[in-house]
Every structure is written in structure tokens, then in C-alpha cells.
């Protein structure tokens, strides 16, 4: 990315033209990554003027971070965590009442599993975010973990700060970070069983008793028409 060129363009053009310009910058960044990694980039998503998502194959996970750190100027490690795309079978247990209140229908059936930006083929994803402190943009990297082998190489050799984030993702999702220097629980007690942030881990307090705040979504009298329905706009 040539920052000087972008800067002069922004100065001369009207401020309204900024969004497509930033988009070009992100496209250039994506092209740079694609040029080096080729087929290892399995998905990407750009929201113009806002953000960039890149999904890589698992084997390139560490390499793409090293590349971003050394060649793209993304030296700032922001966070790493996991995503479980399984539609929650437990989380809406008592909250299904919401459906009855807002739509007057029975509780919904579970929707099919869908994934977010940059796609995904499996249930679990690891994602991380790097920032460039000099050019003020960020990239979200994602990678799929196959269901039978929830492991990925550790990022600690590239970013020291990944150590704690990987320990958290390890205990919360049950991932394995191969080569992690100290793979023990960070928050949870050592003997804790289960992985709380997985969608099939029940939130027990919520199964016993519905959240009292549920009345918040009850339609108010006289508020019945357009505004009462959540997706009126």
C-alpha cells in the first residue's frame, strides 16, 4: 500500500469519495496476500471503507500472520479467538418465549448451520485480528478446523501476545494449539469439564429460569403496528 498516494488522493477529492478509495487500499492488501499464498486463500470479504476478512487454509495459518506482520506492516496483535457456527441447541431454551411474544408463533426450529464473512466449511473457526499502527487498518484472519482434528499451529513464535489468547481459546472451545509453550487453563479451574463457549454447552442458569429482562421485548399497548415489528424497516 502506498500511503502517500492515498493521502494525496483524499486531499484532492471530495470527502465523499473516501469510501471507494479505502476499498482500493484493502483490495490491494488482499491482492498482495493472494499473490503470495495463492490457493491457500480460500475466502475473503471486504466491506468498503471499513474492514477486511481473509480466510486461509489451516496449514498457512502461521505463515499468513508472519507475512502480514513483516510485509503488510500489521505488527500489532489485537486478539485471537474461536467461533462455533453450530446453531445453539440450548442457548434459546427458555428464550423461545421471545418468539411466541414477538411473532405469535411456536418456537422456531433450528436453522441450518451458516457461516459468516469469508465463508467457512466446518463448524469451528479460529480467527484473529492484526492492526497496522502506521496506516491504521486492520485485518481479520480466519481458518477452519476440521471436526475430527481441532488443532492448529500456535502463533506464539510470531506474536508473543497470542499465548494467553490461545490458552483462552483452548479452554473455551477445546482447540489444540500445536507447539504452545504452556497449554493450561487460563480462566477455568484445572478440573473443569467441557468447553463453555461451544454452542452445545448449556448455560445452566438460563435453563432453570428465564431471564427476567424478557419482558423488555413485549410489545407495548398502542405500539402495535410498524414499530412493534422488529424488521419493519
Amino acid at each position, binding site marked *: 500500500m502506498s500511503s502517500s498516494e492515498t493521502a494525496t488522493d483524499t486531499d484532492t477529492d471530495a470527502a465523499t469519495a473516501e469510501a471507494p478509495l479505502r476499498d482500493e487500499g484493502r483490495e490491494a492488501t488482499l491482492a498482495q496476500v493472494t499473490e503470495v499464498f495463492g490457493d491457500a486463500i480460500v475466502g475473503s470479504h471486504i466491506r468498503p471503507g471499513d474492514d477486511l476478512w481473509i480466510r486461509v487454509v489451516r496449514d498457512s495459518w502461521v505463515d499468513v500472520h508472519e507475512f502480514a506482520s513483516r510485509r503488510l506492516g500489521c*505488527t500489532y496483535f489485537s486478539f485471537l479467538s474461536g467461533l462455533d457456527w453450530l446453531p445453539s441447541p440450548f442457548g434459546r431454551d427458555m428464550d423461545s418465549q421471545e418468539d411466541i411474544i*414477538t411473532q405469535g408463533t411456536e418456537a422456531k426450529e433450528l436453522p441450518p448451520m451458516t457461516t459468516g464473512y469469508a465463508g467457512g466449511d466446518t463448524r469451528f473457526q479460529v480467527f484473529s485480528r492484526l492492526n497496522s499502527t502506521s496506516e491504521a487498518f486492520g485485518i481479520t484472519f480466519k481458518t477452519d478446523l476440521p471436526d475430527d482434528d481441532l488443532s492448529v499451529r500456535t502463533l506464539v513464535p510470531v506474536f508473543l501476545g497470542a499465548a494467553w489468547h490461545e490458552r483462552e481459546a483452548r479452554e473455551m472451545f477445546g482447540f489444540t494449539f500445536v507447539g504452545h509453550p504452556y497449554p493450561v487453563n487460563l480462566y477455568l479451574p484445572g478440573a473443569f469439564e467441557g468447553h463453555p463457549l461451544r454452542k452445545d454447552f448449556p448455560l445452566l442458569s438460563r435453563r432453570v429460569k428465564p431471564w427476567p429482562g424478557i419482558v*423488555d421485548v413485549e410489545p407495548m399497548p398502542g405500539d402495535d403496528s410498524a414499530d412493534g415489528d*422488529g424488521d419493519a*424497516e
Partner: protein
Amino acid sequence: MTATVPDNQQLAYVAAKAADARVNVEFESEGMTLNIGPQHPATHGTLRIVAKLDGEQVVSCEPIPGYMHRGYEKLTEVRTYPQVTTLVNRLDWVGSFANEVPFILAAEKLMDVEAPPRAQHIRTILFEMSRLANIVLFLGDLGAQMGGVTAVFYGFRDREFVLNQIEAVTGGRFHPNFDRIGGIKDDLPKGWIAETKVAMDKVLAFCDQIEDLLIGNEIFQMRARGVGVIPADIALSYGLSGANLRASGVDWDTRRDNCAPGLVYDKVDWKVITHPDGDSFARCWVRLQEVRESAKICQQLLDTIPAGPIMAKVPRIIKVPEGEAYVETENPLGVMGYYVVSKGELTPFRVKIRTPSFNNISVVPWVAKGVYVPDVITILASLYFILGDIDK
């Protein structure tokens, strides 16, 4: 930029593992293991630190968080979007309004809603005032950590001026829960702007006082200068943020560099403070100067609040369209971000909370290696963490 795990990091992990024996003080042939916390005045909260000592020197040091983990990331999945602000208020509990803002901004980004200018102004003012409430307390508390109790009373006294103003608008001193998707809950009360200007003057006077009393104090400087030096590449690699990063000479502030839409930092004249040293003193000094800048931002914004509505038109029942958004803001403790994944439901599908203290404290094993025991306390104090912000 280092590309491999340094020996000291490895050692820190190995030693902390060996030390995890659930005894307070344990004598061993090669040294002593000292447990600081989970209940200890120097940890302000329930952070446990296992330090392995060789005489007075720390061989390795590992913080053990989790004594107050509340599972907010899981809880957000069963709360509606407006209900989430109540939860996230409890992350950094001394500057709580600032916790709500990035989440609301992420939801606004997904819904493609923008708050009216007046709401954006008031939101930015309250955001900066929670920074004042937070850092003024830090500067006072710093005195206690360094062995001088007087500053604590000054900090608590002058923080009240800010809290009173926040309370006058939001009704809450600690947990305002005031930010809404598409605007703010209420307008300003009568006479608030003039009163707040007086409070800002008091905060600036406090800065002068604390600079004379504490930052300029010879004993403080002896204890803080050259202690706990974090070079810029290590700070970036660990993802330190806020004053900790800028004290290492990295000129990056999300308020200036990629200000999230919905806050109006581009409309005021202020500057980002950096310091080249990277030691405990630099971190404290940068925070003190940031309080001054923050008060300046508030003063300017108070003069230019536009008239108009305080809420954009949003549906009463908020459903957020499908998508993903990440918004980060420069909170009192550092960069706080929310990665929100929506499936078009009433509740978020997943919220990853990126808290500043989590990254800031993860550097402790690196920075505390080889220092003397009393310096561990000053380093922790200067890194400045709020336990709720680590434990989520």
C-alpha cells in the same frame, strides 16, 4: 521484531507451572516461590501472581487470572442487544460508560444506523469523562502503590467532581447504562454544561497538583524510572494498548487514527501523547498528560454541542441484520473492541470482547523477569489493569 519465543518467556511458563502448588510460601532448594494474591492490596482485585524468587530478584512471574470470570461472552448470546450494555458496564468498572460505546457502535454499524450529531457529541463527552473518572483514580491510587497514601485522597476527592456530572446526566455513578443503539437515553439536564466546565477546571488543577506531589516526587522517580522497560516491538507483539503502548514510543491512538463513526474526535483540537522511554515512569506520565488532553477535549466539545434530536429512528424491538462487525475504541485502559457476529436474531450470535487489560497484563511474565520484588508492584501499578477487564 523477534520471531522466536525468548528463553525468559519459556522459563516463566515452566517456573509458573512448577509453582502452581497452592501453598503460600514454599522454600525450595533453588529459590522461593511467592504467591501474591488472589487477595492482596497490591493487586486491586483478585489477580494472583506467582513469582519465583532468587533472593530479592524475580526469576519468573506469572499472573493467574480467572478468580472473577463471569462468562460475559457466553451471556451475551442470551441477551438482546440493548441488554448487553448492562453486562459490559461491569468490565472496566471505574470508567464504565466507555465500555458500552464500542458495542453500541458495532451494533449501529451492523444496522447501518447513525446517531444524530447531538447524541454523538454528548456520547464523546461522556466517553472522555469516564476516562477522567478512571485515570484520576489511577493517578491517586498510584501514590498508594508507591508508598505515599496522600495522593489517594486527592484522587478520590477530585474524581467525585467528574462522577457527580456523570450522575447528573445518566443517573448512575458507576454503571450509567446510558448509551443506546441510535443515540443516547436522555438529554442533558439544565445547567450541566456550565457545571461540567467548572469540573474540568478542577480536574486540570488536580493534574498540576499531582504532578507536583507525585510525578515530580524524587522518591517516585527513583522507583519508576528505568524500571519495567517495554520496548516498542515487544509492546506491539503483546498487543499492549493505551498509555502502555504510547509510553513505548508507538504513536497510535484509535481516537485519531481510525476513529469509529459515532464519535466526534475529528472535530476537536488535541494531540496524542507519547514517551520514548517505555518504563513505569513513562506510562504514568503519559496517563497524566492524557487526562489534560481529555479535559481539553471535553471543554471544546462542551462549547460546540449542536442542537437537534438525541435518538435516530430505530425499531422498538431491535433485530440486527446478519453480518460481522468489529469496532474498537480508545478506552481509558486501552483499545477495547467488540467483534459482533449477528445472525439476524434478537440476540448476538457471538460477541468476542477484546479487553485492553487482558493484553496489557499478559506482558507481565516478560517484563517482570529479573526485577526486584518491590518493583513488581510498581510495574503492575503502572501497567494499570482493572480486574473486571481481564476476567470478562
